[in-house]
């Protein structure tokens, strides 16, 4: 697979003025500003192949938005190189942005006062979209995102979910090959989230659109992303397929056992009791040391078990591990 995005040792520094408390501090800051250089993005490298759906995740302030803004040509990096489809967005912004669709979940590019369709007409002219292509894209987008209910409604009257669908449609009108989604499901209800995830899967499968997604919603990540790039403090801390990441970061599984009656000897050599609540006991064990089947059979030999369940670690556990350790 050919790489559509290549990032090498990307750095973005900010100069911030440190302020002290109170009026004295404010005056001092005015006369003798204490400047400090902060690295928002600190040597990030990765490469993304055509057709991938990559989750770009990290805690608030980890440098996610800054990276996206550099990839899309909004910001200039302090150092390092970016190639999008072989072109540097800083050197040739117009050529690069033609291939990109960008949605910022917290901001809209639609005209607040006007009908949704008017914003689409403007974009048709800005991107010089052929009439036939425009009609075809509109037909597909209207169908999948169910735009027909509100395409003639002024944007200010749309619900958040409708507005987000409108914004995603606006970003896809010119058939971009790469789609950046910055928190596309923030604040949406379950239905709207489902519609948007369905759409992302569709355009990825049918058109081979590469998707880079930042989100704090781990359901998004779980349902959409084949690969995760996790950043923290401006650095890439993990990069790989989601399954192996979860496996690596959260190797523990849980066995929840419910007993018929109280029992004194609950210990098992390969499992650790992490919680006990009445007749319910939580055992944590490592996949590599003992299989679930073996642990269950050994425990059931001595314990009067009523009910049990095995809980697989999920992405949330893995992410929590990452944030904790770095």
């Amino acid at each position, binding site marked *: 697979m050919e790489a559509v995005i290549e990032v090498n040792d990307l750095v973005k520094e*900010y100069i911030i003025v440190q302020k002290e408390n109170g009026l004295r501090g404010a005056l001092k800051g005015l006369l003798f500003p204490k400047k400090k250089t902060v690295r928002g993005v600190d040597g990030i490298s990765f490469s993304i192949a055509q057709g991938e759906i990559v989750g770009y995740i990290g805690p*608030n302030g980890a440098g996610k*938005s800054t990276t996206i*803004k550099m990839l*899309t*040509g*909004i*910001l*200039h990096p302090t150092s390092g190189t970016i190639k999008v489809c072989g072109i540097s967005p800083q050197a040739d*912004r*117009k*050529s690069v*942005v*033609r291939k*990109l669709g*960008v949605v*910022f979940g*917290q*901001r809209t*590019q639609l*005209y607040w*006062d*006007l009908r949704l369709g*008017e914003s689409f*007409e*403007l974009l048709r*002219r*800005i*991107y*010089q979209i052929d009439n036939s292509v425009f009609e075809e894209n509109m037909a597909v987008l209207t169908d999948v995102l169910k735009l027909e209910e509100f395409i003639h409604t002024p944007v200010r009257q749309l619900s958040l979910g409708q507005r987000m669908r409108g914004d995603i449609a606006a970003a896809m009108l010119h058939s971009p090959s790469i789609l950046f989604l*910055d928190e596309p499901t923030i604040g949406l209800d379950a239905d709207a989230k489902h519609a948007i995830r369905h759409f992302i899967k569709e355009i990825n499968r049918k058109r081979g659109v590469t998707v880079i997604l930042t989100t704090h919603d781990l359901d998004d990540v779980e349902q959409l992303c084949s690969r995760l790039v996790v950043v923290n403090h401006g650095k890439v801390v993990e990069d790989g397929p989601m399954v192996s990441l979860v496996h690596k970061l959260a190797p523990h599984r849980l066995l929840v056992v419910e007993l018929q009656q109280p029992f004194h000897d609950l210990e098992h050599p390969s499992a650790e009791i992490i919680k006990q609540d009445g007749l319910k006991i939580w055992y944590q064990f490592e996949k590599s040391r003992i299989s679930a089947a073996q642990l269950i059979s050994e425990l059931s030999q001595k314990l009067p078990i009523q009910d049990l369940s095995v809980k697989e670690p999920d992405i949330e556990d893995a992410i929590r591990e990452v944030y904790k350790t770095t």
Partner: protein
Amino acid sequence: MVNTIRHYFSVAACFARLAVQRQLEYPLFLFSWLLMIPIQYFSGIWMLKIIVDRFQPLNGWDFPELAFLYGLGLLSHGILVVLFINTWHIDNMVIQGAFDRLLLRPMNVFFQLIASYVNFIGLIDLIPGLIIFIYGCQLVGFEWTLGNIIKLLLVLLGGVLIRASLFISLGTIAFWTKRNASMVGFTLSMLERGTMYPLSIYPYVLQVIFTFIIPIGFISFYPAAEFLGKGSESFQLPLNFALATPAVGLVCFMLSQWIFRRGMKSYESAGS
């Protein structure tokens, strides 16, 4: 090249249509503007008349000449308000992320900034300007020869460019500081005072500044002085004014474009 021009025209036309539609969404705003602007400017000319009637002509400028000067300044202000009003709001665009969006579209950023809002309501600004200017022309006996009309148009073009350059350069500061609304307010009142009265009433230092550093003297004072045959009392400018104002305007505009591009390089966006 032809295609590029056609592309930009098509987008500008669409922007303009959408701008009209957006402004018609708020009829009350339009109405208040209709009321406010004429009151503001007519009270301006009334003040001038009172000053001249009660005391003495301002540094040798009598009321008809002052009306001509004021009207000329108002005309270029009115055109600026229609075409370049977005340069007053660059800081808001930066803070709300609208500027990011301009960078994400495959067109010239400055073009998008200006074209995306043609302020048709601002045409109301032009009406009192036109009335005062024509009134002034009548009083001073301005000759409407072809030569004079061409000169006048060139002066207006230059005046608009000088004003626009100021606001573009100031707006660019928002790329670094995020906020510059106070600067815009300050510049607006400086421009009003500097173009309403003859420059020659100000202290020598201010005259030098308004001629060579922030050349707002070329918006109305120097052209009016030349039209009215008054000569510039303080400085003997070698150029004919009709060429000077558009030339100064062009130089300022190119300079402001350079500043704008520099600013975009260190643009630091805002928020997440």
